[in-house]
């Protein structure tokens, strides 16, 4: 970086807030930065128009069940694909107002679809589910292009390499496989097992975030180095690998075990790592750190439980989806109206002017 004070140069300045009720897993910017999408606990994909001064909520995309954890825009922004925890995947045309369903696969997976990602030219959609299957789909129909890849473990994350020819999958045991997109064959196995621990009866951790840098030379794998299961504590961690060789280059740990998981990663074009963490209720961090340095140059700890980070570099917009304060507690919590309250997700909107 060309500034002596990167903390100031890249300091995010909050300019807006939208609150999703109930909670959402993640909020992501449209490729043009004009829209925000968030998938959540109520089987909806929420949309906000960001073109004006204030975010304006658009009609939600419905028809799902359970949780909508996975969704992704097409690279040109004309479509969005959404998936739910009951195995359904849907393709939507965003050029229509309101967005129009263009295809639907009810039983795309047997149960929880964990992640979706589209390749660089927008023709293929990757999906992975709790059924241990990974599918390469035709984005025009949603159908699988070849038989699903069967994995021995549950796959949490999928990401296309920027070259569009290969993709990475990360599983619940901390293994990353680099797969040939045309044949489905495994090209390389990358060991991120530091992010996994068998504790008592529970398999804890696994690959919770996965991303490439813009030229595809670096693969970032995020999660926690687990201390225990149950209430799950561990050190939020990002492992950086040389994509071509699979060699681990850096291990970045982000604070106490109560901070627990790195839930999302962005590799900034200036070479630093942007992450969010979430752990014990109330604990959340936004962190920017250069891989070669031993501590962050920017650390924000006032937003509890940060679950996603979306950075739109062309406009400098940053969205962080979190959880409200006071989200936990044993036993009854009744509001003044005598109702049992759930939680919500404040989605913080920042701008980085650099």
């Amino acid at each position, binding site marked *: 970086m060309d500034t002596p004070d990167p903390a100031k140069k890249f300091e995010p300045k909050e300019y807006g807030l939208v609150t999703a009720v109930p909670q959402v897993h993640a909020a992501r910017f449209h490729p043009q930065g004009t829209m925000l999408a968030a998938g959540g606990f109520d089987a909806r994909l929420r949309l906000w128009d960001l073109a004006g001064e204030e975010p304006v909520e658009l009609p939600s995309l419905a028809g799902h069940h*359970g949780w909508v954890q996975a969704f992704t825009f097409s690279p040109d922004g004309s479509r969005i694909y959404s998936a739910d925890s009951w195995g359904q995947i849907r393709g939507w045309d965003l050029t229509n107002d309101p967005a129009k369903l263009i295809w639907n696969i009810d039983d795309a997976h047997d149960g929880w679809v964990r992640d979706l990602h589209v390749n660089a030219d927008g023709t293929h959609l990757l999906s992975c589910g709790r059924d241990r299957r990974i599918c390469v789909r035709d984005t025009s129909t949603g159908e699988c292009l070849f038989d699903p890849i069967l994995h021995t473990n549950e796959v949490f994350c999928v990401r296309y390499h920027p070259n569009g020819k290969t993709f990475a999958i990360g599983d619940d045991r901390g293994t990353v496989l680099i797969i040939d997109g045309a044949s489905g064959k495994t090209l390389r196995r990358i060991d991120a097992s530091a992010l996994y621990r068998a504790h008592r009866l*529970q398999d804890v951790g696994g690959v919770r975030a996965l991303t490439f840098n813009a030229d595809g030379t670096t693969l970032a794998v995020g999660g926690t180095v687990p201390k225990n299961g*149950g209430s*799950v504590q561990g050190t939020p961690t990002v492992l950086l690998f040389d994509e071509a060789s699979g060699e681990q280059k850096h291990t970045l740990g982000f604070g106490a075990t109560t901070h627990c998981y790195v839930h999302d990663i962005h590799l900034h074009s200036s070479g630093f790592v942007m992450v969010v963490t979430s752990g014990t*209720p*109330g604990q959340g961090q936004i962190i920017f750190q250069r891989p070669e340095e031993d501590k962050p140059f920017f650390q924000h700890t006032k937003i509890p439980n940060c679950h996603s980070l979306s950075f739109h570099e062309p406009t400098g917009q940053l969205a962080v989806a979190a*959880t409200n304060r006071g989200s*936990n507690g044993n*036993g009854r919590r009744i509001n003044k109206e005598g109702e049992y309250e759930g*939680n919500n997700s404040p989605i913080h909107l920042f701008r980085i002017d650099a």
Partner: protein
Amino acid sequence: MMDQSALCRPWEHTISRRQFVAAGAAATAGTLGLAPFLQTSIAEEVQKQHKQVLFIWLDGGMSQLESWDPKPNSQFGGPFRAIATSVPGIHISELLPRSAEQMHHLAIIRSLCTQDNSHSAGVARIQRGDPKDRGVTYPYFGSAVAKLLGPGKSGLPPYVWIKPGSGGFMYKDAGFLGPKYGALAFGDGQPPENLTLHESLTPSQDDVRNRLREAANQRYSNRRRKSVTEANSYVYDMARSLMKRQDLFDSTQFDARDVQRYGTHEIGRHMLQARLMLEAGVTFVKVNSYGWDTHGDNFNGHASLVPKFDQAFAAIVADLADRGMLDNVLVIAMSEFGRTPRINGHVGRDHWPEAWSLAMAGTGVKKGVVVGETNDKGTFVKDGEFDIGHMFHTWFAALDIDSRETAYNNAGQPLPIAHDDMQAIKDLLS
């Protein structure tokens, strides 16, 4: 020692004079074992049938929403689907596919509303049945059953506990019943150390040695409180009985198919050993699993934990049914509470005693039923709210122990075996 005179008296509650006299007379007899504490006719009936219990304790709190009472596609329902079971109309979480196939053996109660939302109070309160406070520490259910049903004809300890971690003799479980009725815990299913007779000793030498011990114990006990000395002797007797049954700890005897069916994980191994203990005639077998306190990452946690429980639980229910043992064995699977409908910022669920579930099977229990109902969001009980006291009455009834007519004798003080103001849940009983 506690001042007995300060304790409440039976006529202040609901124990009848007849019961008081019976219990008092039994205590006066001063003999050890079952008879002093039970009416003779009940004791005889129990001995004839020898009921047993398999008590599966999921420590920390299994989520009812990710197990027996799913609320799919609702605000707090989480990501998982509900699946059909072998009983038409009954659905449970998709994380329990094998248990779903055994539903025709099971009874689920979905309307438990207990009081404590902390582990420290909840575990003891639930396992002691939360009777009215009479200034005494009530026994855990295992100790209660060990007392009320006795060891049967097996000669084995009546209350064994297969648990992760270390083992030992857990006398505190017994409360006022005295240490004799504590749990003999097998850490990771392993036998107590030094169980085999030392190679330098012959069995006849060991018999001589043991007679000497008994004589010394007798002299010792003449000058001390019986509850202490009998526990001391009892531990030795247990050790001797186990020395003759080392097969109970030999995991190589299991059919490889059974090992796979139950699962090679901790709860699978322990449940298979529990089957062996039940087959050998142990009255009360507790199997513990730890790590269910999922304040964080609840859904991935339950996606990992519940299928392992499911595998082991469904296997033992099926095996006990195949062997005809469900006619005599009461199976209970539960935690100290459920988990909050609300999902916290760590994507976890906290403690929730307000509306939760447990599963049962076996002797005295209706098959293929669900009792009680929570509201659509799963937040509170909608119909048929029951506390742990109701469950103790129900379990005793399932074991043919009349919890209204039976009383403990605590040094002359008759005490009800379950909460005075509660009763058995008839809809759960066959």
